[in-house]
Structures are given as structure tokens and as C-alpha cells.
């Protein structure tokens, strides 16, 4: 079999195999010590990183996640190896910044990014499934705007050095974490964030980033492509992710179909639906969910890097302003953040509709 099939994956079979690998790996990290259904969650991990960098001070949500740093480096190396590391930007950095911020806040109200919605569903969580339904509804609504000609201004080529800042920072932080240990990473047990061993997390992160970059893995993007172009290859990767996660959960005893006993979840189903509907809608308008924004930023897209900066800032504010939900339920500040996110993305969609 030609290695090109894996370096430049296009077939549904290879994309499904990659999705299954990511799904199994994500559940594996939860088995190794991450919180339940949180083997891979870009938004939760960004909240943890924000805490480790001092943007908030909740100990139990502070940890310089090696997975996030690994994703950045893995995507950077994969893009470089595939000659796809192209530094560009200046198209819509402000829209990406605020869009990224609202997407992160929506994820925190739901408690998880679109990938965690898959993992929560794979654990038998009904609230996860409701969130996933909201995500799909939001993406389908966004495709109406894409059909009407919505597009953001195209980025332009920029000097290569600018694209090396994020991978360089990730490398430095990962090296310091490896050298100095958990005191630097900000997760000193017993009260710090739950996590899998450092080496396993970093290795998994590298793989997530590399595979994510080569396959363009994106939950929202796969729904968009299926709805717009009737092309189900990307969706086969997402479906394989879900099925593999269910299979591993069944094998490890992590599958428990129950609404009220879903770990870390709340039972405000309306807000779970609406929060991820806003995330799905917004993610299509700014070209990607939190994981995809990270991968794009690591491949030289500085507009996506602005989105990552917005997400990181919002991650800190989410804790400081009490926006993020907890098992006790959704907070008033969280509800307002979701509704303002809807207003922001509706305005953005209307503004950039039918652009020549």
C-alpha cells in the first residue's frame, strides 16, 4: 500500500481509520488519568492552560496540558513535512479573535468542545447527544449562509517567521514542563487538574496534531462538507471516531447510558443544545472548531492564531466571570454569553453575506 495514501489521505477508508485511531486514543487518555470523557477536549484543555498561565486561579482547572502543546507541535511538523506550512494572515484576525472567544464560551457552557461532545456521547451521556444535535443544527443553519455567498476576506502571504511563534512557544513550554515537572505545569496533586502521565499525554498530543493536520479532522467541518457537497468522506472520520470511542468505552467499562449520571455534565438540556448550536454556527463562519483552529494556527494561519488567542482569553474570563457551567447547572452569565454569541455570529453572517 502506498504511503502517499496516509501522507495525503483522501479516501473515506483512510479518513475513517484515522478517526478511529483518534477516538480510541482519546478514550485511552481518560483511562490513564484524564477526567471522564476528556481524553481530548480543546476547550477544557485551553481553560487548564489559561489557569497554568495565570489567567484564572482555580487550581482544579489549572494544568499546562501537554496534549495541547503536542497538538501544536504535531500539526506544525506534519504541515512542514507535507510542505503545507504556509504563513498567511491579515484576512480577518479581529473576527477570528472574537469568534474564537465566543466559541470557547459556548463550549464552556456545554462543558466541552465538539470533540468532547462526541466523547460524552460515546460514554452513554444523553446530554452529550443533545449537545451534538445542537452542534449539527448550528452547522446546518450556517450552510444556508455559505450557499448565499458568505465568506471572510482571504488571508495574504506573510513572512515565515511570524508563523513560528506559536510552535516555538509550545516547544519551549513543553520542554520546560518535561524538565521542571508538574510544579511548572501547574497541576500539583492532590488538588490540581486530573491528567494522564506527562509522556503519554505529550505523545498523544503529537499524534492528534499530526493526524488532525493531515486529515483536516474537524467535527463541524465534516458535517458542513456532507451537507453542502454530499461528500461523506470527512464524516466517515467523525463517525469512526465516535464508534471507536464507544467500542473502547464498552471494553473498559466506561459506557454508562444515563442522563443524570453523566460525569461532569449538567442536565440543562436546552442550554446544552443552544450552546453547541452557537458553537456549530460560529465554527463554520470562522473555519473551524477549537481543535481545528489550533491545527490551522500551527500550520501558519495567523487568523486562526488570533482565534486561539481569543479562546485563551475567553478561557480565563470563563472561570473569572462564572460563565462556565458545572454539574450544578448553567449560570446566568453563561446563558448571557451564549445569547450574545448568537447575536455576534448572526451579525457576522449577515454582514459578510453575498460578498463579491
Amino acid at each position, binding site marked *: 500500500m502506498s504511503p502517499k495514501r496516509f501522507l495525503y489521505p483522501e479516501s473515506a477508508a483512510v479518513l475513517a481509520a484515522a478517526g478511529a485511531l483518534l477516538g480510541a486514543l482519546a478514550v485511552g487518555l481518560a483511562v490513564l488519568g484524564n*477526567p*471522564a*470523557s*476528556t481524553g481530548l*477536549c480543546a*476547550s*477544557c484543555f485551553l*481553560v*487548564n492552560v489559561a489557569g497554568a498561565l495565570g489567567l*484564572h*486561579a*482555580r*487550581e*482544579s*482547572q*489549572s*494544568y499546562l496540558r501537554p496534549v495541547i502543546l503536542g497538538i501544536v507541535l504535531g500539526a506544525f511538523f506534519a504541515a512542514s513535512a507535507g510542505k503545507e506550512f504556509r504563513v498567511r494572515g491579515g484576512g480577518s484576525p479581529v473576527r477570528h479573535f472574537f469568534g474564537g472567544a465566543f466559541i470557547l464560551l459556548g463550549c*464552556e457552557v456545554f*462543558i*466541552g468542545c465538539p470533540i468532547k461532545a462526541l466523547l460524552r456521547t460515546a460514554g452513554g451521556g444523553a446530554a452529550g447527544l443533545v449537545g451534538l444535535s445542537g452542534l449539527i443544527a448550528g452547522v*446546518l*443553519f450556517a450552510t*444556508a*449562509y455559505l*450557499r*448565499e455567498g458568505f465568506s471572510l476576506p482571504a488571508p495574504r502571504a506573510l513572512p515565515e517567521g511570524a508563523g513560528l511563534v506559536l510552535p516555538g512557544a509550545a516547544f519551549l513550554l513543553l520542554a520546560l514542563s518535561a524538565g521542571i515537572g508538574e510544579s511548572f505545569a501547574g497541576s500539583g496533586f*492532590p*488538588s*490540581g*487538574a*486530573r491528567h494522564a502521565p506527562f509522556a503519554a499525554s505529550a505523545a498523544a498530543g503529537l499524534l492528534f496534531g499530526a493526524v488532525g493536520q493531515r486529515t483536516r479532522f474537524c467535527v463541524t467541518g465534516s458535517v458542513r462538507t456532507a*451537507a453542502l457537497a454530499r461528500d461523506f468522506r470527512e464524516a466517515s472520520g467523525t463517525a469512526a471516531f465516535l464508534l471507536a470511542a464507544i467500542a473502547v468505552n464498552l471494553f473498559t467499562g466506561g459506557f454508562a447510558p444515563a442522563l*443524570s*449520571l*453523566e*460525569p*461532569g*455534565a*449538567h*442536565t440543562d438540556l436546552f442550554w446544552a443544545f443552544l450552546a453547541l448550536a452557537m458553537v456549530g454556527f460560529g465554527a463554520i463562519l470562522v473555519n473551524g472548531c477549537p481543535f481545528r483552529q489550533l491545527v490551522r494556527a500551527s500550520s501558519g494561519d495567523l487568523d486562526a492564531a488570533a482565534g486561539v488567542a481569543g479562546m485563551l482569553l475567553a478561557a480565563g474570563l470563563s*472561570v*473569572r*466571570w*462564572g460563565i*462556565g457551567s*458545572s*454539574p*450544578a447547572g448553567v449560570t*446566568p*452569565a453563561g*446563558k*448571557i454569553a451564549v*445569547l*450574545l454569541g*448568537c*447575536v455576534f455570529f*448572526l*451579525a457576522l*453572517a*449577515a454582514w459578510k453575506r453575498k460578498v463579491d
Partner: protein
Amino acid sequence: MEILSGKRLTLLAALLTAASLAGALGIAATGDLRLPMAADARRGDAAKPDTARVSAEIALAGEASVAGDVAAALAHYRAAALLDPRVVDPRSPAFLGPAFEARLKEWIAAQKKGGGGAGGTQARSDAAFLFRRMYGGCG
């Protein structure tokens, strides 16, 4: 989705925008929109809860448990967890301990079977809250 285009899309978007703004304003006016105090936000988890109240709730829960009143025990444990989430965090020194964890699982199992003695709807809600709080989250 072709049905959503042109003026219909514009109208729906306008309605959604208006509803979202009205909803946000309504929640801001009527919701309990208190931001954490700046000092508390800086201290984060280190912010000290009212330990006397937490201890009192835990003591009441223990007494109710011994007396076989599962519903009251769960209500007091929930009150304690709301005051100080660390009491249901297995990583924290303030954690109620493996014995509490085992007892909670027994009560949930009894509730699933529908047996008496494990409380009614509120008790199920309290047990589920404690379970979700103990095992999940973003950190």
C-alpha cells in the same frame, strides 16, 4: 436547507437576533448575575469556604445516614458540596473519602432498582449531582 434563503433567511436571522438580545437582557435583569469578587477570583480554589457550615452539613449528613434517612443525608452532602466542591473531589485533602464514595454508589444502585429507603425524586437528583461532580469536569 434550500428553503432557508433570501428574505426568509434574513427574517429568521432577524427574529433570532431579537430573541437572543431580549433573552440576554431578560436574564441580565432577573438573573443572579453576580461576578465573583476580584479577590475571590484571584484566590480561586484557595478561597476559604465557611468551614464551620461545611462541617455542620457533613455532620448532619453523617447522622442522617446512620439513622437510615438517605434523602436527608444526600441533601446535606449536596449542601456541603455546594459550599465547598473539594469535599467531593477525590484529589483533594478535603475529600469525604472512599467510604462516602462507596456509600453513594450503593444509594444510586438502590435508587436505580427503585427500592425503598433510597429517597424520592429530590434524593435521586442530589445523588446524581454528587456523582457528576465527583467524576467529571474540565479539570
